[in-house]
């Protein structure tokens, strides 16, 4: 019973994941979500709905990304090609954090 519960706990969250990715907005110098779980190889679309620039980046040993300056209205698409846990931040606004868990298929 305990094994079955553990398996369900592990599998159910993955069942809801969409390989096409998710959208996270940048609004009021913050991400509209604090954490997200995606499948390896899928992407997060960062949509700048603020009226000023953002610059999302990931700096980790096995995955790096930098959108460079992202104007209002622009969307930065980040494809996570490695599994693991990552912190997405903004170079301009240091209090912006998004925790991303990337899981294997």
């Amino acid at each position, binding site marked *: 019973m305990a094994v079955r519960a553990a398996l369900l706990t592990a599998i159910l969250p993955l069942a809801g994941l969409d390989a096409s990715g998710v959208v996270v907005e940048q609004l009021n*110098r913050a991400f509209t979500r604090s954490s997200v779980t995606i499948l390896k190889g899928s992407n997060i679309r960062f949509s700048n709905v*603020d*009226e*000023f*620039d953002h*610059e999302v980046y990931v700096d980790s040993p096995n995955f790096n990304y930098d959108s460079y300056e992202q104007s*209002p209205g622009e969307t930065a698409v980040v494809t996570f090609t490695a599994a693991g846990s990552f912190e997405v931040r903004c*170079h*301009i*606004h*240091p*209090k*912006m954090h998004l925790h991303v868990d990337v899981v294997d298929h």
Partner: protein
Amino acid sequence: MRILLFASLLAAALTGRCMAAETLYDQLGGHDGLSRIVDRALTLYFTDPRLHADFDNINRDWLQPRFYAFFCKTTGGPCVYKGRAMAPSHKGLHIDQARFNAVVEDLQTAMDESRIPFRTQNRLLALLAPMERAIVTR
């Protein structure tokens, strides 16, 4: 003959020096002087309660080189400013007159502390004044 030649060269050198007028960038102390002013102005901006909403959650390390390049370019220094113009770069920040004035006051304080003569300060402020319309949006 030698004296004449020397006099001619000296005159040419002096004339040349007069023609290459000192820029405001030079008067502010060149790279080192302007860096000091920018650094101090940013310290004041980041700690000024009147500007808390503008500078809270801004990465100073990201802003500083852009701020320096803007002032360097504006004052005739040898820099390239790759940032956007004042209107688009301040759009959405809803800056009012009081906050704009606070920025100018803190800049003046930074220049005072660097012992920049009043006349030189005014030259810089005169360059910045026309930008007020692009920055103040409410």
